[in-house]
Protein backbone atom coordinates (compact mmCIF):
# COMPACT_ATOMS: atom_id res chain seq x y z
CA UNK A 1 0.00 0.00 0.00
CA UNK A 2 2.09 2.85 1.31
CA UNK A 3 5.20 1.02 0.20
CA UNK A 4 3.89 0.63 -3.26
CA UNK A 5 3.20 4.33 -3.52
CA UNK A 6 6.58 5.09 -2.05
CA UNK A 7 8.19 2.84 -4.60
CA UNK A 8 6.60 4.78 -7.41
CA UNK A 9 7.40 8.16 -5.92
CA UNK A 10 10.95 7.17 -5.01
CA UNK A 11 11.63 5.76 -8.43
CA UNK A 12 10.83 9.10 -9.88
CA UNK A 13 12.81 10.91 -7.22
CA UNK A 14 15.87 8.79 -7.92
CA UNK A 15 15.56 9.55 -11.60
CA UNK A 16 15.69 13.22 -10.84
CA UNK A 17 18.84 12.69 -8.80
CA UNK A 18 20.42 10.70 -11.59
CA UNK A 19 19.74 13.50 -14.01
CA UNK A 20 21.63 16.15 -12.08
CA UNK A 21 23.70 15.12 -9.10
CA UNK A 22 24.40 18.67 -7.96
CA UNK A 23 20.71 19.11 -7.26
CA UNK A 24 21.16 16.95 -4.17
CA UNK A 25 22.68 19.85 -2.27
CA UNK A 26 19.88 22.06 -3.45
CA UNK A 27 17.32 19.52 -2.39
CA UNK A 28 18.91 19.35 1.05
CA UNK A 29 18.75 23.11 1.35
CA UNK A 30 15.09 23.14 0.36
CA UNK A 31 14.33 20.38 2.79
CA UNK A 32 16.06 22.41 5.51
CA UNK A 33 14.16 25.55 4.59
CA UNK A 34 10.90 23.64 4.59
CA UNK A 35 11.57 22.63 8.20
CA UNK A 36 10.01 25.34 10.35
CA UNK A 37 12.08 24.40 13.39
CA UNK A 38 15.35 24.58 11.50
CA UNK A 39 14.48 27.98 10.06
CA UNK A 40 13.57 29.25 13.52
CA UNK A 41 16.89 27.91 14.82
CA UNK A 42 18.79 29.54 12.00
CA UNK A 43 17.07 32.88 12.53
CA UNK A 44 17.75 32.81 16.28
CA UNK A 45 21.41 31.94 15.67
CA UNK A 46 21.73 34.85 13.23
CA UNK A 47 20.14 37.20 15.75
CA UNK A 48 22.41 35.92 18.52
CA UNK A 49 25.41 36.44 16.29
CA UNK A 50 24.31 40.01 15.57
CA UNK A 51 23.85 40.61 19.29
CA UNK A 52 27.27 39.11 19.98
CA UNK A 53 28.97 41.34 17.43
CA UNK A 54 27.02 44.59 17.81
CA UNK A 55 25.76 44.06 21.34
CA UNK A 56 27.73 46.94 22.81
CA UNK A 57 25.71 49.37 20.70
CA UNK A 58 22.34 48.21 21.97
CA UNK A 59 23.19 47.77 25.63
CA UNK A 60 21.40 50.40 27.68
CA UNK A 61 24.13 50.39 30.35
CA UNK A 62 27.74 49.41 30.84
CA UNK A 63 27.43 45.74 31.80
CA UNK A 64 30.19 46.03 34.38
CA UNK A 65 29.18 49.32 35.90
CA UNK A 66 28.27 48.68 39.48
CA UNK A 67 26.12 51.01 41.53
CA UNK A 68 25.38 49.51 44.91
CA UNK A 69 22.66 52.07 45.56
CA UNK A 70 20.49 50.46 42.93
CA UNK A 71 21.21 46.76 43.64
CA UNK A 72 18.34 44.27 43.45
CA UNK A 73 15.95 46.39 41.47
CA UNK A 74 13.02 44.40 40.14
CA UNK A 75 12.48 44.51 36.39
CA UNK A 76 11.24 47.94 35.37
CA UNK A 77 11.19 50.27 32.39
CA UNK A 78 14.66 51.51 33.30
CA UNK A 79 16.11 48.05 33.96
CA UNK A 80 14.15 45.56 31.86
CA UNK A 81 15.52 42.49 33.60
CA UNK A 82 16.30 44.23 36.89
CA UNK A 83 19.67 44.75 38.50
CA UNK A 84 21.90 42.26 40.26
CA UNK A 85 23.54 42.15 43.68
CA UNK A 86 26.10 44.74 42.61
CA UNK A 87 23.55 46.98 40.97
CA UNK A 88 24.56 46.05 37.45
CA UNK A 89 21.96 46.01 34.68
CA UNK A 90 21.07 42.37 34.04
CA UNK A 91 19.78 43.02 30.51
CA UNK A 92 23.11 44.58 29.51
CA UNK A 93 25.03 41.75 31.12
CA UNK A 94 23.01 39.14 29.27
CA UNK A 95 23.71 40.89 25.98
CA UNK A 96 27.36 41.09 26.90
CA UNK A 97 27.36 37.37 27.74
CA UNK A 98 26.15 36.37 24.28
CA UNK A 99 29.52 36.62 22.62
CA UNK A 100 31.22 34.65 25.40
CA UNK A 101 28.75 31.78 25.16
CA UNK A 102 28.93 31.65 21.39
CA UNK A 103 32.71 32.02 21.31
CA UNK A 104 33.34 29.36 23.91
CA UNK A 105 30.74 27.02 22.44
CA UNK A 106 31.97 27.28 18.87
CA UNK A 107 35.68 27.26 19.71
CA UNK A 108 35.31 24.25 21.98
CA UNK A 109 33.52 22.34 19.24
CA UNK A 110 36.13 23.42 16.70
CA UNK A 111 38.85 22.11 18.99
CA UNK A 112 37.26 18.76 19.74
CA UNK A 113 36.08 18.40 16.16
CA UNK A 114 39.59 18.88 14.79
CA UNK A 115 41.31 16.53 17.20
CA UNK A 116 38.44 14.06 17.21
CA UNK A 117 38.28 13.93 13.42
CA UNK A 118 42.00 13.36 13.09
CA UNK A 119 42.03 10.63 15.74
CA UNK A 120 38.90 9.00 14.38
CA UNK A 121 40.19 9.14 10.81
CA UNK A 122 43.49 7.55 11.78
CA UNK A 123 41.77 4.86 13.84
CA UNK A 124 39.19 4.07 11.20
CA UNK A 125 41.48 4.19 8.21
CA UNK A 126 44.48 2.43 9.67
CA UNK A 127 42.63 -0.10 11.79
CA UNK A 128 44.61 -2.70 13.71
CA UNK A 129 46.63 -1.77 16.77
CA UNK A 130 46.47 1.99 16.30
CA UNK A 131 42.71 1.74 16.10
CA UNK A 132 42.53 -0.34 19.28
CA UNK A 133 44.79 1.99 21.23
CA UNK A 134 43.00 5.19 20.18
CA UNK A 135 39.56 3.82 20.72
CA UNK A 136 40.41 2.30 24.11
CA UNK A 137 41.64 5.69 25.28
CA UNK A 138 38.41 7.23 24.02
CA UNK A 139 36.41 4.59 25.92
CA UNK A 140 38.29 5.42 29.09
CA UNK A 141 37.51 9.09 28.73
CA UNK A 142 33.88 8.22 28.19
CA UNK A 143 33.86 6.18 31.40
CA UNK A 144 34.37 9.37 33.40
CA UNK A 145 31.35 11.70 33.48
CA UNK A 146 32.26 14.55 31.14
CA UNK A 147 31.40 17.29 33.60
CA UNK A 148 33.71 15.76 36.23
CA UNK A 149 36.46 15.47 33.65
CA UNK A 150 35.94 19.06 32.58
CA UNK A 151 36.04 20.20 36.20
CA UNK A 152 39.27 18.27 36.72
CA UNK A 153 40.77 19.89 33.61
CA UNK A 154 39.67 23.31 34.86
CA UNK A 155 41.22 22.63 38.24
CA UNK A 156 44.44 21.61 36.55
CA UNK A 157 44.51 24.42 33.98
CA UNK A 158 43.16 27.27 36.08
CA UNK A 159 40.20 29.49 35.33
CA UNK A 160 39.46 31.63 32.28
CA UNK A 161 37.81 31.66 28.86
CA UNK A 162 40.64 29.93 27.03
CA UNK A 163 40.88 27.26 29.73
CA UNK A 164 37.13 26.63 29.54
CA UNK A 165 37.42 26.16 25.78
CA UNK A 166 40.22 23.65 26.24
CA UNK A 167 38.48 21.74 29.03
CA UNK A 168 35.16 21.46 27.20
CA UNK A 169 36.91 20.75 23.91
CA UNK A 170 39.06 17.95 25.32
CA UNK A 171 36.12 16.28 27.01
CA UNK A 172 34.14 16.03 23.77
CA UNK A 173 36.90 14.53 21.64
CA UNK A 174 35.80 10.89 22.05
CA UNK A 175 32.35 11.63 20.66
CA UNK A 176 33.70 12.97 17.37
CA UNK A 177 36.42 10.36 17.14
CA UNK A 178 33.79 7.65 17.42
CA UNK A 179 31.49 9.13 14.81
CA UNK A 180 34.26 9.77 12.30
CA UNK A 181 35.74 6.33 12.83
CA UNK A 182 32.33 4.70 12.38
CA UNK A 183 31.64 6.61 9.18
CA UNK A 184 35.07 5.89 7.80
CA UNK A 185 34.73 2.19 8.48
CA UNK A 186 31.47 2.18 6.59
CA UNK A 187 32.75 4.02 3.51
CA UNK A 188 36.27 2.60 3.52
CA UNK A 189 35.34 -0.52 1.64
CA UNK A 190 33.33 1.34 -0.98
CA UNK A 191 34.47 0.89 -4.54
CA UNK A 192 35.48 4.47 -5.10
CA UNK A 193 37.84 4.38 -2.14
CA UNK A 194 39.32 1.10 -3.30
CA UNK A 195 39.69 2.57 -6.77
CA UNK A 196 41.49 5.62 -5.41
CA UNK A 197 43.89 3.31 -3.60
CA UNK A 198 44.48 1.17 -6.65
CA UNK A 199 45.49 4.15 -8.75
CA UNK A 200 48.15 4.93 -6.18
CA UNK A 201 46.77 7.78 -4.10
CA UNK A 202 48.53 8.45 -0.83
CA UNK A 203 46.63 7.49 2.34
CA UNK A 204 46.44 11.05 3.58
CA UNK A 205 45.04 12.17 0.26
CA UNK A 206 42.52 9.36 0.17
CA UNK A 207 41.21 10.20 3.60
CA UNK A 208 40.89 13.91 2.93
CA UNK A 209 39.82 13.86 -0.71
CA UNK A 210 37.71 10.77 -0.89
CA UNK A 211 36.54 9.73 2.53
CA UNK A 212 35.99 12.82 4.64
CA UNK A 213 33.68 14.59 2.18
CA UNK A 214 31.44 11.56 2.40
CA UNK A 215 31.24 11.60 6.16
CA UNK A 216 30.99 15.38 6.33
CA UNK A 217 27.22 15.44 6.71
CA UNK A 218 27.26 13.34 9.88
CA UNK A 219 30.01 15.53 11.29
CA UNK A 220 28.18 18.75 10.53
CA UNK A 221 25.05 17.51 12.25
CA UNK A 222 27.02 16.30 15.25
CA UNK A 223 28.98 19.55 15.48
CA UNK A 224 25.84 21.69 15.41
CA UNK A 225 24.30 19.67 18.20
CA UNK A 226 27.73 19.71 19.86
CA UNK A 227 27.68 23.52 20.06
CA UNK A 228 24.48 23.32 22.06
CA UNK A 229 26.01 20.94 24.58
CA UNK A 230 29.20 23.03 24.70
CA UNK A 231 27.11 26.10 25.54
CA UNK A 232 25.43 24.07 28.30
CA UNK A 233 28.81 22.88 29.61
CA UNK A 234 30.19 26.41 29.60
CA UNK A 235 27.24 27.55 31.63
CA UNK A 236 27.64 24.60 34.00
CA UNK A 237 31.31 25.39 34.62
CA UNK A 238 30.40 29.04 35.10
CA UNK A 239 27.67 28.09 37.54
CA UNK A 240 30.14 26.08 39.62
CA UNK A 241 32.42 29.10 39.65
CA UNK A 242 35.04 27.49 37.44
CA UNK A 243 34.44 29.07 34.10
CA UNK A 244 34.89 32.51 32.75
CA UNK A 245 35.92 34.93 35.47
CA UNK A 246 34.76 38.45 36.22
CA UNK A 247 34.59 41.08 34.98
CA UNK A 248 33.29 39.15 32.00
CA UNK A 249 29.56 38.59 32.15
CA UNK A 250 28.93 34.92 31.58
CA UNK A 251 25.43 33.49 31.90
CA UNK A 252 26.34 30.48 34.01
CA UNK A 253 28.54 32.61 36.23
CA UNK A 254 25.71 35.11 36.69
CA UNK A 255 23.45 32.26 37.84
CA UNK A 256 26.09 30.88 40.18
CA UNK A 257 26.68 34.22 41.86
CA UNK A 258 23.01 35.06 42.19
CA UNK A 259 22.13 31.67 43.69
CA UNK A 260 22.01 32.99 47.21
CA UNK A 261 19.21 35.38 46.29
CA UNK A 262 16.90 32.71 44.94
CA UNK A 263 14.04 33.68 47.22
CA UNK A 264 14.75 37.39 47.67
CA UNK A 265 15.43 38.26 44.03
CA UNK A 266 14.35 35.40 41.74
CA UNK A 267 14.51 37.62 38.62
CA UNK A 268 18.29 37.67 38.91
CA UNK A 269 18.16 33.92 38.17
CA UNK A 270 15.40 33.74 35.61
CA UNK A 271 16.74 35.77 32.69
CA UNK A 272 20.26 34.37 32.33
CA UNK A 273 18.72 30.88 32.27
CA UNK A 274 16.31 31.89 29.54
CA UNK A 275 19.23 33.22 27.51
CA UNK A 276 21.07 29.91 27.84
CA UNK A 277 17.97 27.89 26.97
CA UNK A 278 17.22 29.96 23.87
CA UNK A 279 20.79 29.66 22.60
CA UNK A 280 20.92 25.92 23.18
CA UNK A 281 17.46 25.50 21.70
CA UNK A 282 18.46 27.31 18.52
CA UNK A 283 21.44 25.04 17.89
CA UNK A 284 19.36 21.98 18.71
CA UNK A 285 16.67 23.05 16.25
CA UNK A 286 19.20 23.67 13.52
CA UNK A 287 21.02 20.40 14.25
CA UNK A 288 17.79 18.39 14.16
CA UNK A 289 16.79 20.10 10.94
CA UNK A 290 20.16 19.41 9.35
CA UNK A 291 19.98 15.78 10.38
CA UNK A 292 16.56 15.38 8.85
CA UNK A 293 17.61 17.20 5.69
CA UNK A 294 20.72 15.07 5.27
CA UNK A 295 19.05 11.78 6.02
CA UNK A 296 16.18 11.10 3.64
CA UNK A 297 15.05 8.22 5.83
CA UNK A 298 14.34 10.36 8.85
CA UNK A 299 12.89 13.04 6.59
CA UNK A 300 9.98 10.77 5.88
CA UNK A 301 9.30 10.23 9.56
Amino acid at each position, binding site marked *: *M*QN*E*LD*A*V*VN*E*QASEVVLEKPESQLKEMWFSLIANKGAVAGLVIILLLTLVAVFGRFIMPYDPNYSDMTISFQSPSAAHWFGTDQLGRDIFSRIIDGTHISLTVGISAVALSLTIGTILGAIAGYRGGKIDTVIMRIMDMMLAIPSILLAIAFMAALGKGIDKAVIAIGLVCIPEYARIVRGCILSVKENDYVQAARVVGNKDFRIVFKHILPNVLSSIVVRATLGISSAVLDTAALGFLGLGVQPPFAEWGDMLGRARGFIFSAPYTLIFPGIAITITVLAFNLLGDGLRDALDPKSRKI
Partner: protein
Amino acid sequence: MLLEVKNLKTEFKLKKGVVNAVDDISFSVDKGEILAIVGESGSGKSVTSLSIMGLIAEPGKVAGGEILFKGTDLTKLPVSELQKIRGDQISMIFQEPMTSLNPVYRVKDQIMESIMTHMKLSKEEALKRTVEMLDLVGIPSPEKRAGDYPHQMSGGMRQRVMIAMALACHPELLIADEPTTALDVTIQAQILELLYSLREKLGMAVLLITHDLGVVAEAADRVIVMYCGKIVEEADVKTLFTDPKHPYTVGLLESIPKMDDERERLYMIKGMVPNPLKMPKGCSFSDRCEKCMEKCKEHIPALIEVNGAKVRCFLYSDAEEGKV
Protein backbone atom coordinates in the same frame (compact mmCIF):
# COMPACT_ATOMS: atom_id res chain seq x y z
CA MET B 1 -22.12 -13.98 -2.95
CA LEU B 2 -19.47 -13.87 -0.21
CA LEU B 3 -17.79 -10.57 -1.00
CA GLU B 4 -19.06 -7.81 -3.21
CA VAL B 5 -16.99 -4.73 -3.84
CA LYS B 6 -18.95 -1.90 -5.39
CA ASN B 7 -17.40 1.28 -6.81
CA LEU B 8 -14.57 1.20 -4.30
CA LYS B 9 -12.39 4.30 -4.25
CA THR B 10 -9.31 4.59 -2.10
CA GLU B 11 -7.21 7.70 -2.20
CA PHE B 12 -3.99 8.94 -0.67
CA LYS B 13 -3.79 12.60 0.18
CA LEU B 14 -0.16 13.53 -0.33
CA LYS B 15 1.37 16.97 -0.08
CA LYS B 16 1.77 17.11 -3.85
CA GLY B 17 -1.79 16.03 -4.57
CA VAL B 18 -4.32 13.27 -4.26
CA VAL B 19 -3.48 9.83 -5.60
CA ASN B 20 -6.43 7.67 -6.55
CA ALA B 21 -4.79 4.36 -5.76
CA VAL B 22 -8.03 2.48 -6.28
CA ASP B 23 -10.35 4.23 -8.69
CA ASP B 24 -13.92 3.04 -8.77
CA ILE B 25 -13.60 -0.74 -8.98
CA SER B 26 -16.30 -3.37 -8.59
CA PHE B 27 -15.98 -7.12 -8.36
CA SER B 28 -17.24 -10.03 -6.35
CA VAL B 29 -15.91 -13.24 -4.86
CA ASP B 30 -18.05 -16.37 -4.57
CA LYS B 31 -17.88 -18.92 -1.80
CA GLY B 32 -14.98 -21.29 -2.33
CA GLU B 33 -13.68 -19.40 -5.35
CA ILE B 34 -10.11 -18.32 -6.03
CA LEU B 35 -10.12 -14.88 -7.61
CA ALA B 36 -6.80 -13.45 -8.70
CA ILE B 37 -6.09 -9.74 -9.01
CA VAL B 38 -3.11 -9.16 -11.30
CA GLY B 39 -1.18 -5.99 -11.85
CA GLU B 40 2.21 -4.29 -11.62
CA SER B 41 3.30 -2.56 -8.47
CA GLY B 42 1.37 0.67 -8.22
CA SER B 43 -1.70 -0.80 -9.92
CA GLY B 44 -3.70 -0.60 -6.71
CA LYS B 45 -4.09 -4.32 -6.13
CA SER B 46 -2.55 -4.31 -2.66
CA VAL B 47 -4.47 -1.18 -1.74
CA THR B 48 -7.64 -3.01 -2.76
CA SER B 49 -6.88 -5.88 -0.42
CA LEU B 50 -5.98 -3.58 2.48
CA SER B 51 -9.15 -1.58 1.85
CA ILE B 52 -11.18 -4.74 2.30
CA MET B 53 -9.38 -5.41 5.59
CA GLY B 54 -9.88 -1.82 6.69
CA LEU B 55 -6.13 -1.48 7.11
CA ILE B 56 -5.51 1.58 4.96
CA ALA B 57 -3.30 3.87 7.02
CA GLU B 58 -2.89 7.62 6.92
CA PRO B 59 -2.67 9.50 4.62
CA GLY B 60 -4.84 7.04 2.72
CA LYS B 61 -8.53 6.40 3.16
CA VAL B 62 -11.44 4.68 1.53
CA ALA B 63 -13.16 7.56 -0.19
CA GLY B 64 -16.24 5.90 -1.59
CA GLY B 65 -18.09 2.76 -2.54
CA GLU B 66 -19.15 -0.30 -0.59
CA ILE B 67 -17.46 -3.48 0.50
CA LEU B 68 -20.23 -5.97 1.21
CA PHE B 69 -19.13 -9.05 3.10
CA LYS B 70 -22.05 -11.43 3.43
CA GLY B 71 -24.28 -8.42 2.92
CA THR B 72 -22.66 -6.19 5.59
CA ASP B 73 -20.89 -3.06 4.39
CA LEU B 74 -17.43 -3.22 5.94
CA THR B 75 -16.70 0.42 5.17
CA LYS B 76 -19.51 1.47 7.51
CA LEU B 77 -18.59 -0.80 10.41
CA PRO B 78 -16.97 0.68 13.50
CA VAL B 79 -13.40 -0.45 14.08
CA SER B 80 -14.37 -2.69 16.99
CA GLU B 81 -16.79 -4.63 14.79
CA LEU B 82 -14.24 -4.82 12.01
CA GLN B 83 -11.71 -6.27 14.45
CA LYS B 84 -14.13 -9.12 15.16
CA ILE B 85 -14.20 -10.01 11.47
CA ARG B 86 -10.48 -9.57 10.78
CA GLY B 87 -8.52 -12.71 11.41
CA ASP B 88 -11.76 -14.59 12.01
CA GLN B 89 -13.98 -14.53 8.93
CA ILE B 90 -11.56 -12.69 6.68
CA SER B 91 -7.88 -13.16 7.17
CA MET B 92 -4.83 -12.11 5.27
CA ILE B 93 -1.32 -13.22 4.48
CA PHE B 94 1.37 -10.93 3.20
CA GLN B 95 4.19 -10.71 0.75
CA GLU B 96 7.05 -10.59 3.25
CA PRO B 97 7.09 -13.66 5.46
CA MET B 98 10.49 -12.57 6.75
CA THR B 99 9.14 -9.42 8.37
CA SER B 100 5.48 -10.17 8.85
CA LEU B 101 5.97 -12.13 12.05
CA ASN B 102 6.77 -10.33 15.27
CA PRO B 103 10.43 -11.12 16.03
CA VAL B 104 10.10 -11.07 19.82
CA TYR B 105 7.32 -13.63 20.23
CA ARG B 106 7.38 -17.36 19.69
CA VAL B 107 5.47 -18.67 16.71
CA LYS B 108 2.92 -20.39 18.92
CA ASP B 109 2.22 -17.21 20.88
CA GLN B 110 1.43 -15.37 17.68
CA ILE B 111 -0.92 -18.05 16.38
CA MET B 112 -2.54 -18.50 19.78
CA GLU B 113 -3.12 -14.76 19.98
CA SER B 114 -5.19 -14.97 16.83
CA ILE B 115 -7.15 -17.96 18.12
CA MET B 116 -7.79 -16.50 21.55
CA THR B 117 -8.85 -13.15 20.12
CA HIS B 118 -11.71 -14.77 18.26
CA MET B 119 -12.56 -18.07 19.90
CA LYS B 120 -13.47 -18.79 23.46
CA LEU B 121 -10.80 -21.39 24.10
CA SER B 122 -8.55 -22.10 27.05
CA LYS B 123 -4.82 -21.74 26.65
CA GLU B 124 -4.35 -25.50 26.37
CA GLU B 125 -7.03 -25.82 23.71
CA ALA B 126 -5.61 -22.89 21.78
CA LEU B 127 -2.16 -24.44 21.90
CA LYS B 128 -3.56 -27.74 20.69
CA ARG B 129 -5.27 -26.01 17.82
CA THR B 130 -2.07 -24.11 17.03
CA VAL B 131 -0.14 -27.35 16.71
CA GLU B 132 -2.89 -28.79 14.53
CA MET B 133 -2.75 -25.79 12.25
CA LEU B 134 1.03 -26.00 11.96
CA ASP B 135 0.62 -29.65 11.07
CA LEU B 136 -2.06 -28.77 8.52
CA VAL B 137 0.23 -26.34 6.69
CA GLY B 138 2.91 -28.99 6.52
CA ILE B 139 5.40 -27.97 9.19
CA PRO B 140 7.34 -31.03 10.35
CA SER B 141 7.36 -31.80 14.10
CA PRO B 142 4.90 -28.98 14.79
CA GLU B 143 4.98 -29.39 18.60
CA LYS B 144 8.65 -28.58 18.59
CA ARG B 145 8.65 -25.84 15.96
CA ALA B 146 5.75 -24.10 17.71
CA GLY B 147 8.24 -22.94 20.33
CA ASP B 148 10.60 -21.41 17.78
CA TYR B 149 11.10 -17.72 17.26
CA PRO B 150 10.51 -16.50 13.69
CA HIS B 151 14.21 -15.89 13.07
CA GLN B 152 14.86 -19.58 13.61
CA MET B 153 12.78 -20.46 10.57
CA SER B 154 13.30 -20.22 6.82
CA GLY B 155 11.19 -17.98 4.60
CA GLY B 156 9.04 -20.81 3.34
CA MET B 157 8.43 -22.02 6.90
CA ARG B 158 7.49 -18.55 8.00
CA GLN B 159 5.00 -18.22 5.17
CA ARG B 160 3.50 -21.52 6.28
CA VAL B 161 3.26 -20.11 9.80
CA MET B 162 1.54 -17.03 8.39
CA ILE B 163 -0.93 -19.27 6.57
CA ALA B 164 -1.51 -21.34 9.71
CA MET B 165 -2.16 -18.13 11.61
CA ALA B 166 -4.54 -16.85 8.93
CA LEU B 167 -6.44 -20.13 8.81
CA ALA B 168 -6.52 -20.68 12.57
CA CYS B 169 -10.09 -19.43 12.93
CA HIS B 170 -11.42 -21.02 9.72
CA PRO B 171 -11.95 -17.87 7.71
CA GLU B 172 -14.43 -17.82 4.87
CA LEU B 173 -12.22 -15.52 2.86
CA LEU B 174 -8.44 -15.54 2.73
CA ILE B 175 -6.71 -12.59 1.16
CA ALA B 176 -3.27 -13.59 -0.02
CA ASP B 177 -1.20 -10.56 -1.01
CA GLU B 178 1.71 -11.77 -3.13
CA PRO B 179 2.10 -14.83 -0.93
CA THR B 180 4.90 -16.35 -2.97
CA THR B 181 6.81 -13.37 -4.33
CA ALA B 182 9.54 -13.40 -1.72
CA LEU B 183 10.11 -17.14 -1.90
CA ASP B 184 12.26 -19.47 -3.99
CA VAL B 185 10.63 -20.97 -7.04
CA THR B 186 10.35 -24.47 -5.56
CA ILE B 187 8.91 -23.12 -2.33
CA GLN B 188 6.51 -20.96 -4.37
CA ALA B 189 5.02 -24.04 -5.96
CA GLN B 190 4.68 -25.73 -2.57
CA ILE B 191 2.89 -22.77 -1.03
CA LEU B 192 0.51 -22.45 -3.99
CA GLU B 193 -0.16 -26.16 -3.83
CA LEU B 194 -0.88 -25.77 -0.13
CA LEU B 195 -3.29 -22.88 -0.67
CA TYR B 196 -5.06 -24.81 -3.39
CA SER B 197 -5.47 -27.94 -1.29
CA LEU B 198 -6.57 -25.99 1.78
CA ARG B 199 -9.21 -24.26 -0.29
CA GLU B 200 -10.57 -27.71 -1.21
CA LYS B 201 -10.31 -28.97 2.35
CA LEU B 202 -11.74 -25.95 4.18
CA GLY B 203 -14.02 -24.59 1.48
CA MET B 204 -12.88 -21.01 1.85
CA ALA B 205 -12.65 -18.40 -0.87
CA VAL B 206 -9.26 -16.93 -1.74
CA LEU B 207 -8.52 -13.47 -3.08
CA LEU B 208 -5.08 -13.88 -4.58
CA ILE B 209 -3.15 -10.69 -5.22
CA THR B 210 -0.16 -11.13 -7.52
CA HIS B 211 1.88 -9.63 -10.30
CA ASP B 212 2.84 -13.08 -11.56
CA LEU B 213 0.63 -14.55 -14.27
CA GLY B 214 2.34 -17.90 -13.72
CA VAL B 215 0.86 -17.99 -10.23
CA VAL B 216 -2.53 -17.05 -11.66
CA ALA B 217 -2.45 -19.86 -14.21
CA GLU B 218 -1.61 -22.36 -11.50
CA ALA B 219 -4.11 -21.38 -8.86
CA ALA B 220 -6.94 -19.06 -9.88
CA ASP B 221 -10.47 -19.67 -11.14
CA ARG B 222 -11.11 -16.13 -12.27
CA VAL B 223 -8.83 -13.18 -12.95
CA ILE B 224 -9.05 -9.42 -12.67
CA VAL B 225 -6.34 -7.36 -14.34
CA MET B 226 -5.73 -3.97 -12.75
CA TYR B 227 -3.84 -1.03 -14.13
CA CYS B 228 -3.42 2.33 -12.38
CA GLY B 229 -6.22 1.73 -9.93
CA LYS B 230 -8.74 0.55 -12.50
CA ILE B 231 -9.91 -2.87 -13.65
CA VAL B 232 -8.97 -3.19 -17.32
CA GLU B 233 -10.03 -6.78 -17.87
CA GLU B 234 -11.94 -9.48 -16.03
CA ALA B 235 -12.34 -13.06 -17.24
CA ASP B 236 -12.19 -16.67 -16.13
CA VAL B 237 -8.69 -18.00 -16.17
CA LYS B 238 -9.05 -20.08 -19.32
CA THR B 239 -10.50 -17.25 -21.37
CA LEU B 240 -7.87 -14.86 -20.18
CA PHE B 241 -5.00 -17.06 -21.25
CA THR B 242 -6.48 -18.22 -24.56
CA ASP B 243 -8.19 -15.02 -25.61
CA PRO B 244 -6.73 -11.96 -23.87
CA LYS B 245 -8.38 -8.76 -25.00
CA HIS B 246 -6.88 -5.65 -23.43
CA PRO B 247 -3.54 -4.67 -24.98
CA TYR B 248 -2.10 -4.52 -21.45
CA THR B 249 -3.14 -8.11 -20.72
CA VAL B 250 -1.78 -9.15 -24.09
CA GLY B 251 1.46 -7.44 -23.24
CA LEU B 252 1.66 -9.13 -19.85
CA LEU B 253 1.11 -12.54 -21.42
CA GLU B 254 3.67 -11.80 -24.13
CA SER B 255 6.28 -11.07 -21.53
CA ILE B 256 6.02 -14.51 -19.90
CA PRO B 257 8.93 -16.65 -21.10
CA LYS B 258 7.78 -19.83 -22.84
CA MET B 259 9.47 -23.17 -23.31
CA ASP B 260 9.33 -23.13 -27.11
CA ASP B 261 10.43 -19.54 -27.28
CA GLU B 262 12.53 -18.72 -30.32
CA ARG B 263 12.63 -15.00 -29.93
CA GLU B 264 16.01 -13.44 -29.19
CA ARG B 265 14.71 -11.13 -26.50
CA LEU B 266 11.84 -11.35 -24.11
CA TYR B 267 8.98 -9.02 -24.90
CA MET B 268 8.63 -5.99 -22.66
CA ILE B 269 5.81 -3.50 -22.43
CA LYS B 270 7.43 -0.20 -23.37
CA GLY B 271 7.54 2.74 -20.97
CA MET B 272 6.71 2.87 -17.31
CA VAL B 273 3.68 3.05 -15.08
CA PRO B 274 2.74 6.73 -15.12
CA ASN B 275 3.32 8.92 -12.09
CA PRO B 276 0.16 8.57 -10.00
CA LEU B 277 0.05 12.35 -9.73
CA LYS B 278 0.31 12.86 -13.49
CA MET B 279 -2.14 10.45 -15.01
CA PRO B 280 -2.87 10.63 -18.74
CA LYS B 281 -6.13 12.37 -19.46
CA GLY B 282 -7.66 9.46 -21.36
CA CYS B 283 -7.02 5.76 -20.95
CA SER B 284 -4.28 5.38 -18.34
CA PHE B 285 -2.49 2.82 -20.52
CA SER B 286 -2.61 5.02 -23.62
CA ASP B 287 0.99 6.26 -23.47
CA ARG B 288 2.37 2.71 -23.39
CA CYS B 289 -0.16 1.06 -25.69
CA GLU B 290 0.93 -0.14 -29.12
CA LYS B 291 -2.60 0.14 -30.44
CA CYS B 292 -3.26 3.57 -29.04
CA MET B 293 -5.73 5.68 -31.02
CA GLU B 294 -6.44 9.42 -30.92
CA LYS B 295 -9.55 8.81 -28.89
CA CYS B 296 -7.65 6.88 -26.22
CA LYS B 297 -5.65 9.97 -25.30
CA GLU B 298 -8.72 12.08 -24.68
CA HIS B 299 -11.38 9.77 -23.27
CA ILE B 300 -11.56 6.98 -20.74
CA PRO B 301 -13.15 3.77 -22.04
CA ALA B 302 -15.82 1.99 -20.00
CA LEU B 303 -15.60 -1.59 -18.74
CA ILE B 304 -17.79 -3.49 -21.23
CA GLU B 305 -18.76 -7.14 -21.51
CA VAL B 306 -17.29 -8.81 -24.61
CA ASN B 307 -17.66 -12.55 -25.29
CA GLY B 308 -18.08 -13.59 -21.65
CA ALA B 309 -15.29 -11.35 -20.40
CA LYS B 310 -15.14 -7.71 -19.37
CA VAL B 311 -12.68 -5.32 -20.92
CA ARG B 312 -11.98 -1.59 -20.78
CA CYS B 313 -10.73 -0.65 -24.24
CA PHE B 314 -11.92 1.32 -27.27
CA LEU B 315 -10.82 -1.51 -29.52
CA TYR B 316 -13.93 -3.40 -28.47
CA SER B 317 -16.50 -0.72 -27.84
CA ASP B 318 -16.91 3.00 -28.15
CA ALA B 319 -18.52 3.29 -24.76
CA GLU B 320 -16.92 5.91 -22.55
CA GLU B 321 -16.62 5.84 -18.79
CA GLY B 322 -19.53 7.61 -17.16
CA LYS B 323 -21.51 7.90 -20.40
CA VAL B 324 -23.13 4.48 -20.59
